[in-house]
């Protein structure tokens, strides 16, 4: 009846009893959550929340929800990071040095990696896809709006499940890719690895749904005249990134399912006995894991390819070579996975192949960097915050790429393997490439979504905190790695390492200030929203000036139907062509617009899958059966009762909305 709750080995509440940090964190989260619920009730926002957000199928609102989820998870993942940095700065000596015991410390680094990749970067990615892609291709929504809503709620379920592990039971102590045999039942008998497996499985299902949706959207729903080679580069990178997802997430799904079979049904895939082979898991997760890195970074390249031309007031240099480079990376990303385990003993031929393939991948990436530099060359570069992030990205990411080439040299890798040099390298590329790139996108498209820009001064300060903080936090790790410090150290005996760990901690705190400044920027906008009682006034369409793509041709924030009339595209940079040409904004004779209807099925399915995941972790088999059947039932019932025909926005309402925007533009003296 109570599954593993009655099993003392599973330690359902041991963390709450033995770890004061966990107890305080859980208490604070519960109190804040309760206050939030009270506040929503007091303000009477439940109805609005339900109608406009929870059940919405509008890609713009779903995008914003993804980004909010990602930012909350960023704070969670960053808390883990700063705890590790503080601990290692004082962990000189024995097991009791520092303030985290090995058991707790191991859970923290596992949670940090898992959350940052699957529940921070991925939702942020899908938030940007959702908000931007349909607007850039001149569409009114994604191809499958219900699937989009469902995908968000399953991601949400995964994120909640992984956070439940903080208070109830444990999280894995196995690193973010949970290598067996440590992650097998014999090595990890409690609930930690099960939380890992089921929350990732949920995230994987949601990500796959999202990828199906975006490939279909980009292939089928482009505005008339927008051929593939007239798409904005961000859409190209989105397409390739989603194709990669479709090819690699099934591998992760299978790997996770096989480990589940090992742990739950006593099978022998990755065990040391019964003919199993742990290296098979390591191959699977890296066949997934290496292309996943490109899934994350390609859209960041796409963002730079949008932002750099806007703030250089020039056309993107080398559009077709950009597209070509993305496609080459798509292919090469499948040929490098074994460079994550050169030390496996794969033999000279295997290691040489993967070593050379890894070096070659620097070439298309270099092409992109040169294209951005040539775009800026002789351009009028304006150092607005999005452009600062882009410059920071170019400068930092190239360095991270170079240490990657160092790691690709097999004999050298035998020295770097599993050292802090490696940790420094992948943070160099992920923070310098992915995070800086996404933040550039977030700041760039923010005024499109809300009508107002984020505070300029705070944005500049936030950038410099991240930039300086990053170098202080991670360059000492390169040095430590070369000095012999391995990753995931709970304590160390070498006094000469400590100063470097202290510098790294200072760097992490400076990044923390950068995050706080971003939160402050957002709070300013939230207070602006509350002053307008949640109804944001429309603002000009092109707040940065010199923007080139279709999303900047409509009001900020855009109307729910996006485009009153679907534009006809003739060239790359469609909106730029409209501005240069004498294309006047159409003022009248709009037609009624067909839109998809809201549905609550996605929300209920997400909640049921959360219950299903929790029940599976705790072996509550009766609840597993109930929630599994209920999940299927919700989807089937939706196929019968859902409103699949959508509804129409009447032409008069379109007219009113467009008139309001035209009046605003006239009042501000902006040329339409």
């Amino acid at each position: 009846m109570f599954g593993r709750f009655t099993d003392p080995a599973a330690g359902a509440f041991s963390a709450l009893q033995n770890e004061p940090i966990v107890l305080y964190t859980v208490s604070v989260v519960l109190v804040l959550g309760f206050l939030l619920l009270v506040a929503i009730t007091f303000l009477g926002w439940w109805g609005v929340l339900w109608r406009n957000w929870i059940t919405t199928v509008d890609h713009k609102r779903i995008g914003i929800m993804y980004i909010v989820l990602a930012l909350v998870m960023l704070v969670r993942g960053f808390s883990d990071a700063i705890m590790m940095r503080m601990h290692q700065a004082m962990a000189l000596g024995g097991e009791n040095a520092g303030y985290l015991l090995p058991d707790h410390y191991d859970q923290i680094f596992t949670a940090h990696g898992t959350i940052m990749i699957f529940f921070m970067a991925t939702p942020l990615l899908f938030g940007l896809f959702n908000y931007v892609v349909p607007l850039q291709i001149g569409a009114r929504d994604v191809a499958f709006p219900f699937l989009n809503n469902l995908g968000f709620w399953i991601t949400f379920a995964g994120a909640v499940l992984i956070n439940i592990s903080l208070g109830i039971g444990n999280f894995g102590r196995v690193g973010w890719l949970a290598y067996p045999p440590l992650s097998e039942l014999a090595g990890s008998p409690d609930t930690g690895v099960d939380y890992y497996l089921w929350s990732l499985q949920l995230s994987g299902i949601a990500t796959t749904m999202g990828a199906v949706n975006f490939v279909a959207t980009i292939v089928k729903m482009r505005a008339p005249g927008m051929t593939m080679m007239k798409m904005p580069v961000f859409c190209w990178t989105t397409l390739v990134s989603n194709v990669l997802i479709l090819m690699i997430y099934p591998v992760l799904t299978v790997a996770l399912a096989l480990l589940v079979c090992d742990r739950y049904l006593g099978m022998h895939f990755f065990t040391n006995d019964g003919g199993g082979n742990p290296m098979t898991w390591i191959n699977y997760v890296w066949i997934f894991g290496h292309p996943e890195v490109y899934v994350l970074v390609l859209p960041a390249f796409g963002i730079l390819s949008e932002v750099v031309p806007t703030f250089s007031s020039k056309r993107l240099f080398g559009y077709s070579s950009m597209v070509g480079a993305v496609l080459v990376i798509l292919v090469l990303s499948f040929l490098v996975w074994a460079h994550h385990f050169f030390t496996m003993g794969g033999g000279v031929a295997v290691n040489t192949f993967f070593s050379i393939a890894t070096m070659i991948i620097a070439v298309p990436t270099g092409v992109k960097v040169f294209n951005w530099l040539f775009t800026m060359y002789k351009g009028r570069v304006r150092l607005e915050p999005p452009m600062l992030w882009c410059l920071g990205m170019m400068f930092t990411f190239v360095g991270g790429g170079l240490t990657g080439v160092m790691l690709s040299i097999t004999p050298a890798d035998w020295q770097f393997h599993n050292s802090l040099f490696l940790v420094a390298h992948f943070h160099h590329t992920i923070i310098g490439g992915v995070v800086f790139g996404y933040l550039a996108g977030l700041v760039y498209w923010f005024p499109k979504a809300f009508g107002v820009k984020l505070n300029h001064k705070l944005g500049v300060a936030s950038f410099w905190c991240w930039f300086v903080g990053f170098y202080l936090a991670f360059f000492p790790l390169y040095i430590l790695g070369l000095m012999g410090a391995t990753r995931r150290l709970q304590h160390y005996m070498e006094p000469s390492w400590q100063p470097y760990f202290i510098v790294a901690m200072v760097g992490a705190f400076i990044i923390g200030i950068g995050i706080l400044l971003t939160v402050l920027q957002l709070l300013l906008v939230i207070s602006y929203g509350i002053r307008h009682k949640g109804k944001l006034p429309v603002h000009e369409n092109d707040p940065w000036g010199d923007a080139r793509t279709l999303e900047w041709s409509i009001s900020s924030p855009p109307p729910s139907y996006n485009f009153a009339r679907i534009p006809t595209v003739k060239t790359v940079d469609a909106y730029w062509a409209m501005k240069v040409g004498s294309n006047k904004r159409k003022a009248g004779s709009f037609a009624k617009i067909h839109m998809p209807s809201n549905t609550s099925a996605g929300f209920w399915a997400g909640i049921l899958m959360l219950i299903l995941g929790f029940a599976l972790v705790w072996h509550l088999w009766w609840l597993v059966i109930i929630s599994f059947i209920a999940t299927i039932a919700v989807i089937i019932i939706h196929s019968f009762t859902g409103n699949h025909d959508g509804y129409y926005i009447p032409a008069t309402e379109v007219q009113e909305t467009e008139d309001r925007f035209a009046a605003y533009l006239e009042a501000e003296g902006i040329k339409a």
Partner: protein
Amino acid sequence: MNTTVVKTAHMTGNYSHDGGSSKVFGFWIYILQDLFLFATLFANFAVFSSAYDTGSAGKDFIDLPFVLVETFLLLFSSITYGFAMIQMHRSNLTGVRLWMAITFLLGFAFIAMEVYEFAHLIHEGAAPWTSAYWSAFFVLVATHGIHVTGGLIWMACMFIHLALDGLDAHNNARLTCLSLFWHFLDIIWIGVFTVVYLLGAL
């Protein structure tokens, strides 16, 4: 018919989520990712294809005539589903129901035989937990079986959909997607039959 509806919707810029080409296209993409899932499982089976440990080898248990009957049940069910689709294009609701019912029965018989085979193997001491070989065997074959079961549930729902709305655009798109799914599972089974059973019996 469908395509014309969707083309018009696209040209007037209307958001198209009605039963149409986007839905079928999206389903193709889903099938492609499912193909990668099965590819991984086939690779996994190949990796462990001789990992018997102390357990028995696959060929000691493979009963080819039995599996051949299973194979023909599934192959014929693909043909009968094809007949159902022909009836759909002729807008003959009765014909669709008749051929889909036959497809359902064939699929159900396939699953019944597979369940019997699994029970028999476990009873004989070739269980998923016996060795890595049998783990890989059961996971690959059962994943296909679970997909077929999903297809059967989908068919059951389709009977109700057809009873409620007949052959409207939504149901035609659903039948087309289910058709893709069913033929896809047939192709996967050809792979399973060849790799697991025929090669295994050598």
